[in-house]
């Protein structure tokens, strides 16, 4: 639409009310969001989910009995909950992955996770291809929070392996877990090293775009949030009392208290802002437009669908007419040629037939002539014989007296 003319409105039309209509419809329909949390056990994943949505979604972990066998593979646990705020209903699905990175041999630990994500894509694909598509439930994973242990060094081998395998399938958001164990200088250095590691291994983590139509404030906000990735977070669903008497969410130590909602202390506020307040819809769009589409293309190609590229040609009516006319003319010329060809063929045929019959006649004629000639000669012979008085039949004596002597 670059060449479209921009007209100035001369009065109020009213389509500026469209966003409100969309808003009303969406609120009626409700929203759905699926987030996956991945990381070694003990990094505070459940606590963070509780902190993010300010609700005790995950109960505190009852310890497994000592005598119980620990599971041998990574489990997938889905928690679904409906939360409401100011009339807006959100159906939140949290996919937990207990056991990831906890075994002695973690070589297959990403498989169940990958299978879950692809399985959800598959179910959506199948729903899209149904005859009746009025009710599609979108269970695709919109964001994956990957918890990095606060070692202070660099990414572990397992971190790199996991991210390499999943960055093309889901929006990856790395977070530094339990970051209250690192000093601020250590956090800054750690973040830098992680980003270098990610760039070095060509891992594409989620990166929010900003559009030209956004105002400067939004662009700055987005840049600010994105600069903090990976988010250094601390989670807590308990209320503590700070040294100056405030009651806030945080963790209390003998040497001080860290406040979860304080931007100076940790990046939790930025993470929540990105995930819930500003980029939830973008994450969903990204999942649909990029990750899902890539998956779909791959899957369909594998199934043997051929891509017909001619449907993408630009359709210009005038050119089309010209084309048609040219085609038609070419057709006519061809027909003419064809007919000429046929005509010539027929002529040749007739000619050959005629020459053939000519030949025949000629031979017949010759035959007849010969026969005639023969007959003539015969007759001549006979005539001569009669003229010479020889009997026609030579040895025959005349008994009758008639003869030509009496004359």
């Amino acid at each position, binding site marked *: 639409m670059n060449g479209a003319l921009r007209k100035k409105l001369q009065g109020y039309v009213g389509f500026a009310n469209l966003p409100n209509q969309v808003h009303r419809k969406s609120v009626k329909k409700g929203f759905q969001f699926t987030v996956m949390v991945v990381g*070694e*056990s*003990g*990094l505070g994943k459940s606590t963070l989910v509780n902190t993010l949505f300010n609700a005790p979604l995950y109960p505190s*972990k009852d*310890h*497994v009995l*000592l*005598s119980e066998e*620990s599971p041998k593979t990574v489990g997938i646990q889905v928690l679904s909950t409906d939360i409401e705020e100011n009339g807006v209903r959100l159906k939140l699905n949290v996919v937990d992955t207990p056991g990831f990175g*906890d*075994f*002695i*041999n*973690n*070589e297959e630990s990403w498989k169940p996770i990958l299978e879950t994500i692809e399985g959800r894509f598959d179910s959506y694909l199948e729903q899209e291809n149904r005859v009746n598509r009025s009710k599609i439930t979108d269970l695709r994973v919109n964001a994956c929070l990957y918890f990095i*242990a*606060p*070692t*202070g*060094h*660099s990414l*572990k*081998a*397992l971190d*790199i*392996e996991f991210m390499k395998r999943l960055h093309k399938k889901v929006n990856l958001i790395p977070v530094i877990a*339990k970051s*209250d*164990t690192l*000093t*601020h200088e250590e956090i800054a250095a750690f973040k830098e*090293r992680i980003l*270098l*590691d990610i*760039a*070095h*291994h060509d891992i594409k983590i989620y990166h929010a775009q900003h559009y030209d139509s956004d105002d400067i404030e939004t662009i700055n906000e987005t840049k600010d949030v994105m600069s903090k990735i990976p988010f250094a977070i601390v989670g807590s669903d308990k209320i503590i009392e700070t040294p100056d008497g405030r009651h806030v969410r945080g*963790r*209390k*130590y*003998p*040497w*001080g*208290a*860290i*406040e979860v909602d304080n931007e*100076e*202390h940790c990046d939790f506020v930025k993470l929540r802002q990105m995930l819930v307040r500003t980029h939830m819809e973008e994450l969903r769009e990204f999942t649909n437009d990029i990750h899902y589409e890539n998956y779909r293309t791959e899957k369909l190609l594998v199934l043997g669908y051929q891509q017909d590229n001619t449907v993408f040609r630009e359709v210009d009516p005038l050119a089309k007419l010209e084309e048609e006319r040219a085609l038609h003319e070419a057709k006519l010329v061809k027909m003419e040629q064809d007919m000429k060809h046929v005509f010539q063929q027929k002529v040749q045929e007739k000619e050959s037939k005629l020459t053939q019959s000519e030949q025949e006649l000629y031979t017949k004629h010759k035959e007849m002539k010969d026969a005639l000639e023969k007959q003539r000669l015969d007759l001549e012979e006979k005539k001569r014989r009669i003229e010479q008085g020889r009997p026609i039949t030579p040895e025959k004596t005349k008994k009758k007296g008639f003869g030509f002597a009496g004359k």
Partner: protein
Amino acid sequence: MSLDAQSSQPILQSYVGFDSITSQIERKLLKRGFQFNVMVVGQSGLGKSTLVNTIFASHLIESKGRTQADEPSRKTVEIHALTETIIENGVKLRLNIVDTPGYGDQVNNEGCWDTIVKYIKDQHSAFLRKELTAMRDRFIQDTRIHSCLFFISPTGHSLKPIDIVVLKKLTEVVNVIPVIAKSDSLTIEERLAFKQRIKDELIHHNIKLYPYASDEDDLQDQTLNETYQAMIPFAVVGSEQSIIVDGKPVRVRQNRWGVINVENEDHCEFIHLRNFLTRTHLQDLIETTSMIHYETFRSKQLMALKESGQAGQGH
């Protein structure tokens, strides 16, 4: 000399002077110096190097973690041994620190403890060989590992499967002292719950940690051991940075919401670990290695040699 009726101990009538034997030994030992070998085992990034440097109050070892993006991660467990001599009040301590980078860092950690156990056994084996030679040195260099600091990640839940397997293997060959690394990520309640859980798990899996109860212990030793056994695993925080507090340099970790004093007993148990390791149980660690672990190894080896010798002769 008169003997008390029915009493075993004779009473001395005048000063003999054999009580100076302690100072004679001390002088000899001071001249010779002491040897202490400690090994650190734990995943990368748990603060092992920092803790060792904090315990001995000097920069002895460097962190071997992966810091550059183009640095490949280690594919096997390596053994890095470093010897340093430190002197305090005329007492010379030859310190041998064995680091094990690569432990627990790969995706597949099967068998990562084999290298470590083999190294420990090799040191016993080397000592045994030197002992058995006909012409042996007057004083054999002791490279046997006297203590192994095992670092537990502060998850707050329980021990990891790899921790349990490795602890089982290590406690059979060396004195293991478990510590909870980076314990500043746990609040006091979380720390107590975690410790209790670890202790329960250790009992459940029958893992025997140093200090071992012994018949020789008198009441004082017993109570001391019991206090320490209640505290194990030590929840520690290490730091090489210090700030000045009241005119004295204090080692701390500084943050925007608080300052952790490493040497403050209310903050962490570093002081207890340091005292345990250097002030009270240093000699006992060396002795236990020699008398329990080495003897077990030695008897196994000699019996195996005897059996193979017999088997050879039998044919």
